[in-house]
């Protein structure tokens, strides 16, 4: 039986989040199980069900390198250092 991943969109500014999963023989039953198991108290104003086998997964290793791209972000330390140097030069 296919496993579906359940994504819910709460009311308001937040986007869809992964709520969990369920097993169902087809899309129609998946929708029924989703309502019964995941949306009993208005937890979502929209719901997406995706068969797990259809999800395209990326290799986490390829994603990890992007967390260390210094050239793509700036923590402001160089600017702070330059400013300090200018202040010191001005007071001398």
């Amino acid at each position: 039986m296919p496993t579906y991943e359940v994504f819910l969109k709460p009311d308001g500014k937040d986007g869809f989040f992964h709520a969990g999963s369920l097993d169902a023989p087809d899309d129609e039953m998946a929708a029924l199980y989703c309502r019964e198991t995941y949306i009993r108290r208005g937890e979502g104003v929209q719901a997406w069900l995706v068969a797990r086998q259809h999800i395209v997964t990326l290799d986490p290793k390829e994603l990890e390198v992007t967390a260390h791209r210094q050239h793509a972000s700036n923590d402001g330390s160089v600017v702070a250092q330059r400013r300090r140097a200018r202040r010191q030069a001005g007071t001398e």
Partner: protein
Amino acid sequence: MRVWETMEDFDQFIVNGGTVEPGDDMPSAYRQEVFRFIEMHANSELFGGLCERYWVSRAPGVHRKLAFLAKTQDEIGHAHLLYMVAADLAVKSRAQMIDDLMAGRSKFHNVFHYKTHTWADQIVIAYLVDAAALTTQQAVLKQCSYGPYRRILRRIVSEEGFHMRHGEEMLLTLADGTVTQQNMFQAALDRWWEPVMHFFGPPTKDGDLLIRWRVKSDTNEALRDRFVQKFVPMLQEYGFVVPDPALHRNASTGKWVIGDIDWAALRATQSNVGPDSAARIELSKQSWDNTAWVREALHVP
């Protein structure tokens, strides 16, 4: 997929606050421990739902019946969520877990090995057992190292909160009711206090793997104590007597101290030979068998 070369590396990852995900190459001992814990939790939710369902038709008034119906659905829902998380650990399939449970090969929490005698028993369960479950679940939710379990617990814990408040509302109805109602609750409390103390488990042993790998963040004694400090004064305030002759307040700390616990009854439930274990397992099997036609009908393509 993350791989840890040695157990020391894995332990360090956990100590550093790491979160393990289903795709990770986790040590098999960790996989087994986490699975065992979640499977038992799932089984207990299912049995909780079945126990709740019994009272849907018996609860007094339409409002209570509807509330019990909603609660039953919550508990079955919790079981469903947890079985999905457990199945992803690929130790057993969901079908295998159900098979094992119905055959009496699996464990479920001690409180579901007892009979409910009166409506007040069910109120004790709704109030104290749901509160005890909430206490233990909050401690897991706080910093559980297994990501999917922790995330699904957030939802479960918020629903247990409703159950506890509903239980307290019913308790107050009896507490503010007639002497007969008050006596009924006291009698139920007398029956259930020991099982509720047992619910938190025997004292945690040194080197407990669930603590080491941060599945649980508190020892069983710490959780039991947290519950005692909160619920002993509450029950007393509502006019009831906690059935523990050794219960007293430590003069210097002001904390409640309970008497020694006899673990014999807990051990019986752990081997599925508690007072009502066989009947509970049989009931779950019957309800599973009785609904086979529904599953078949729904799953015909």
